[in-house]
């Protein structure tokens, strides 16, 4: 059975360079200028899973993102991987949206794309890292969700069998479609865009919507949470450096640890 799959993606600052993020001491605002953006790595696993399912079952793969204008680059990258079409939800009024508001905007955007059978997401983003959007999106679309998926098997016409990771094992979950499923890293190895893919992607459509897409009444959904303050974590200790010949240093360290009953 061909499936219409929608993949939700997010553009994030490169986590390898998070240590370059600083705090403006005057305003308390985050300074992240010059840090390159990438597509959230887990979202690329979600795109890959969608492409694999399309290869097996047929159908279409659409990607959707909410973000600033430059997030379009992530949509283009997904098209270059092989997605059929893309959409970006972009509006000044979406800035600072928390997971609840993001899920509502995405739900409206997804409805505007037409019918769908399956929605895939990365389990969490490397920046916000809440992992909350997928279950909340499912709630606003009134469909079931499964998070932490490490394996998805399509089970006949209208259901998927999912292995979802928990501490010390996994749960086997049968979920009716349409559903929202968020995936973990181990589910697949994602492909990189090829030159052919990049050329083909240039032809494909990217739909753009502002807050007029929001249901009901084009109203921007409210974010219940607020960032009250950001501060640099200061959990420093006073270190005692032990130096000298290694035999002496080792002996001294073990002696001190025993004294403190740490051994």
């Amino acid at each position, binding site marked *: 059975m061909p499936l219409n799959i929608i993949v939700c993606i997010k553009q994030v600052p490169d*986590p390898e360079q*998070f*240590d370059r*993020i600083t705090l403006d001491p005057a305003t308390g605002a*985050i300074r992240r200028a010059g840090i390159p953006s990438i597509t959230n790595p887990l979202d690329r696993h979600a795109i890959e899973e969608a492409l694999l399912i399309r290869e097996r079952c047929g159908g279409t793969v659409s990607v959707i993102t909410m973000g600033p204008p430059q997030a379009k680059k992530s949509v283009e990258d997904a098209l270059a991987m092989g997605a059929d079409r893309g959409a970006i939800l972009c509006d000044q009024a979406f800035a600072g949206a*928390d*997971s*609840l508001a993001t899920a509502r905007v995405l739900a409206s955007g997804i409805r505007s794309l037409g019918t769908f059978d399956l929605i895939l997401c990365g389990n969490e983003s490397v920046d916000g*890292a*809440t*992992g*909350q959007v*997928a*279950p*909340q999106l499912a*709630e*606003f679309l009134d*469909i*079931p*969700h*499964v*998070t*932490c998926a490490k394996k998805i098997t399509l089970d006949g016409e209208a259901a998927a069998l999912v292995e*979802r990771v*928990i501490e010390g*094992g*996994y*749960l*086997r*979950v*049968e*979920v009716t479609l349409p*559903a929202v499923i968020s995936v973990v890293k181990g589910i697949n190895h994602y492909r990189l865009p090829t030159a052919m893919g990049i050329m083909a992607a240039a032809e494909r459509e990217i739909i753009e919507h502002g807050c007029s897409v929001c249901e009901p009444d084009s109203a921007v959904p409210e*974010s*219940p*949470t*607020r960032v*009250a*303050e*950001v*501060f640099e*974590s200061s*959990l*420093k*200790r*006073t*270190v*005692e*450096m*032990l*130096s000298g010949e*290694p*035999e002496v*240093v*080792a*002996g001294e*360290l073990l002696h001190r*640890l025993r004294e403190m009953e*740490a*051994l």
Partner: protein
Amino acid sequence: MRQVVIWAERRDGRIADVSLETLRKATLLAKDLDGSVAAILIGDGCRESAEELIHYGADQVWLVEDNRLDLYQSDLYARIAAEIIAEAKPEIVLMGGTSIGMDLAPRVAAKLRTGLTAHCIDLYIETIDGRDQLIQVVPGWGGQMMVKITCPDHRPQMATVRPGVMEKGTTDVTRTGKIIPITPAICEDDFRAKTLEMVKEEEQETPLEDAEIIVSGGFGLYGSEGFEPIERLAAALHGEVAGTRPAFDQGWIPESRMIGQSGKTVRPGLFVSVGASGAMHYTTGFLKAKVIVAIDRNPKAPIFDIADFGIADNLDRIIPCLIEQLENQEYTKH
């Protein structure tokens, strides 16, 4: 009376540690609010666990039992929890940030149209503009920043709690409280997502969270003998082996042994970090260790800023000495 509600997760017939950690935090918050603590317990045959929650500080437990609720069922658990919360109208709802807690809490928050903060490492009450607000502290940007989040105008204020960060309370078997049994109305439509079974993948080792001594290695071991010295040092200390994200990327440790923002948070008595420079997204995973020892080649590595004892030396020189002395002492002791 203002209420703080927790969802108590059951795993293998007992209350999950993080739920007891969350429960203790809830009792502290309730004290500040002059309120009470209630727990939602969903499962099958878990009255004993309900009593345990009372012994650990809950004033009241909603006990929801049905044999179809033995395993986590996302649709049903979310509906039941949201219905109880909507009726009780608590100030605060807390859930442990396990893989299941992180699945349930967002869906419940969406049903209640309220805010939810993930992976909190601290929670406290502050009065802002005359109203008591829950300050929710989460690590941001790989752990080098801390972010305070509030939910000023919506109730309940909801948060998930990072496992291993907060302390468990103590049990008092003489403590009494109210158990309110609830028989949920369940129909077929409630199983759109149906958990069929739980498959356990046996972990041979002690879970890191329970280890008293942890020896953790980083990329600095590259080019020497890899992880073998770490394993020998851990064995000599009777501790557990762990590592940084780069150590995991090198294939030296499994994901279950990775420390930090994207891995485990631990609070052992002794944490020995070897060959890791001390990036925040790593150190955030063991900041609450009682004693931290850092060993790294580079005397300027930031790891020394958060350690109690530091040794800046070639790893190939110092580690064998430590192992030898530990093994010799062991020998003399016996």
